[in-house]
């Protein structure tokens, strides 16, 4: 078994914190691992990536070869596209749909989501919305790790242990916020896939997830939402027209 991940984002988004959590989980599990990262000039608001590899046999290259990545994990939608040629034919994308706009020619978000939808094997979460619900916008990186957790090879408790260790020096409140971000991100990712696997289009699933209170998201409701939307197209429009978010369990009466 070997897993190859490209972590992507913009300098300052906490890519190396994601790497810390997965590195230590891999070490904890007794896996071999290597994780190459970018320091220095690029960290000043530039595109940042990290290659993370773990497995039960020795890892040779510090860099993931083109076509060998199992996962591109991005805290930002545009940055996925800088690296998706690394993905193997059955590789996955886990990404936030919250854009990080610090360049003048940042593309239209809807177009990015269409491109991701066309790719298909994606788990998309609104990290801004979810991190805010968890208690701090800076926890968006932990939201994305949570969303990716089902595709990794570690118990959630192990990943959470290293989220806790990562923030231990910053006080219990910061620890709690980040663990919560991880859990909400995990639930949001599974819920999103429940919608998509239930027949909801990826752009619709993205839009719908933005209208459901992130603190209430339960993956178990995914199929019911998918079925309800399938049966009544107006239901989706109705939820999307809402000004505020609705609780996840109000599938039948979303308004």
């Amino acid at each position, binding site marked *: 078994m070997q897993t190859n991940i490209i972590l992507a984002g913009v300098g300052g988004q906490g890519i190396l914190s994601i790497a810390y959590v997965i590195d230590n989980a891999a070490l904890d599990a007794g896996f071999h691992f290597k994780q190459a990262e970018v320091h220095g000039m690029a960290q000043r608001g*530039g595109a940042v990536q990290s290659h993370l590899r773990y497995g039960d046999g020795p890892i040779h290259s510090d860099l993931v070869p083109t076509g060998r990545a199992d996962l591109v994990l991005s805290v930002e939608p545009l940055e996925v596209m800088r690296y998706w*040629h690394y993905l193997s034919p059955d590789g996955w994308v886990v990404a936030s749909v919250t854009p990080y706009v610090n360049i003048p020619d940042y593309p239209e978000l809807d177009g990015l989501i269409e491109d991701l939808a066309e790719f298909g094997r994606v788990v998309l979460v609104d990290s801004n919305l979810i991190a805010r619900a968890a208690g701090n916008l800076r926890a968006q990186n932990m939201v994305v790790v949570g969303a990716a957790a089902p595709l990794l090879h570690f118990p959630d408790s192990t990943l959470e242990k290293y989220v806790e260790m990562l923030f231990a020096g910053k006080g219990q409140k910061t620890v709690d916020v980040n663990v919560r971000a991880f859990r909400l991100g995990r639930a949001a990712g599974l819920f999103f896939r429940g919608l998509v696997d239930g027949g909801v289009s990826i752009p619709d699933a993205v839009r719908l997830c933005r209208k459901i209170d992130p603190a209430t998201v339960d993956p178990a409701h995914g199929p019911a939402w998918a079925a309800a939307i399938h049966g009544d197209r107006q239901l989706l429009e109705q939820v999307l027209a809402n000004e505020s978010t609705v609780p996840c369990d109000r599938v039948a009466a979303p308004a």
Partner: protein
Amino acid sequence: MQREVLLGDEAVGLGAIHAGLSGVYGYPGTPSTEIFEFVEQRTAGSGDVHAFWSTNEKVAYEEALGMSWAGKRALVCMKHVGLNVAADAFMNSAVTGTNGGLVLAVADDPGMHSSQNEQDSRVYAQFALIPCFEPRDQQECYDMMIEAFDLSEELALPVMVRLVTRLAHSRSGVATREPRPQNALHPTREIRKWTLLPSNARVQYRHLIDKQPELLRRAEDSVHNRLNLAGRRGVIACGIANNYFLENVDDGHDLSVLSLAQYPVPAGRIRRLVEHVDDLLVLEDGYPVVENMVRGLFGLNGVRIRGRMTGEVPRTGELNPDLVRSALELPPHPTAHQPSPSLAGRPPALCKGCPHTDTFRALNEALSEFENPQVFSDIGCYTLAAFPPLEAIHSCVAMGASIGMAAGAAHAGYRPAVAAIGDSTFSHGGITPLLSAVQQGVNLKVIVLDNGTVGMTGTQRSMSTGDALDHIILGAGVAPEHLRIIEPTPANHAANVQILRDELAWDGTSVIIARRTCLEAIKRKVS
């Protein structure tokens, strides 16, 4: 046995500590910075290991050499171009030889992620006639440091450990050993050895030459230089290139392989390989050092030698598993998606609210009355002012070069001659050219961007900031009325432009200090 998650740089630092290190020296520079920082943090408060950034790499090297002279083990670390600055002391330390173990850890930057060139430090090791280790992974970073210190004391020579960016900045689990105690203070008494007057230097240089067969024997016998003879196609893989090679072959491959990690180049092992094969691919992350040695001027009869010089591997840039795959003539892996051709770029930029932005806005405006003004600049975050929208600087060559180059342009009659340099770069290499300029009365305007830290590499301590900087500049002879201090903020813009204009109008050497603390440094202090 303990296992720790460590960067290649950190593994080098920990290896040094466990080898009985007494002092670490260096100047920050990507990708080497984390070596020093790791030793500094790991030994903080213990008082056991001297760890204080030096003003530049030459000073660092000399301090390390002094520690070695006193009988203790010293590590000096820097990036590849830093070794150019330290080269005088470095080359001559091979001639004096060492007393306590002296290891130079130098991190090269193939592909120039954060550098002006991709020079290969193995050439320097060859030039100075000293041994060099080139670790393949993080574990070897740790293990080879311990070995390098032992070898340095055995041979009484400095030893180089060469890293590349991908190893310096890649993490893995590292198994560690029991630390060895530090050496006791035992200063050398061999005065002639350390006094390189020509009569002594000739003797010492002869000693260095006489040691070479022993260095070669060590490399020939080294467990790190592994030769495995199989089929008629051969590969030499140096350092990290070996990982990229293994990534692309199965256990059952039929290639004859020499994996190299200790230099000088073991000629005997290479001879055995070339006599066995008729096709030889040489893989190196850096210059084609080994490839060119094997080929010589005229090549080898009956053996086709391939590598960076023949195009199978690109002549420039960083090596990676894909390039090695192609050089091995293996088909590319299928991928899920084509590379996106016209993606919006996301280059690094100055932070929002950075003081440098305000300084360069003011400078741009003050210079707008000149035709096509060009500003000589230096190495640091402020080099990013070369990009739009500021486009405020027009050169970046070497640490401190802005002042000397601006002076030279002024000698040639170029007006206005303006240099922009950071406070730490000024202490590194800017003081001496300023002194020269003042002595000559050159019409030169030096802007010192004093943000109080070494920003680009992670806010390390600056040696010349605040009052200390003012005193150095006045001490160099700059007229007090032409040392101007501005605070670069949007509110001060008009006043700052006027001060710059006034100095530009004066025919002499002026220094304008733009003083405001780096935002990143403030953030790090708070958190």
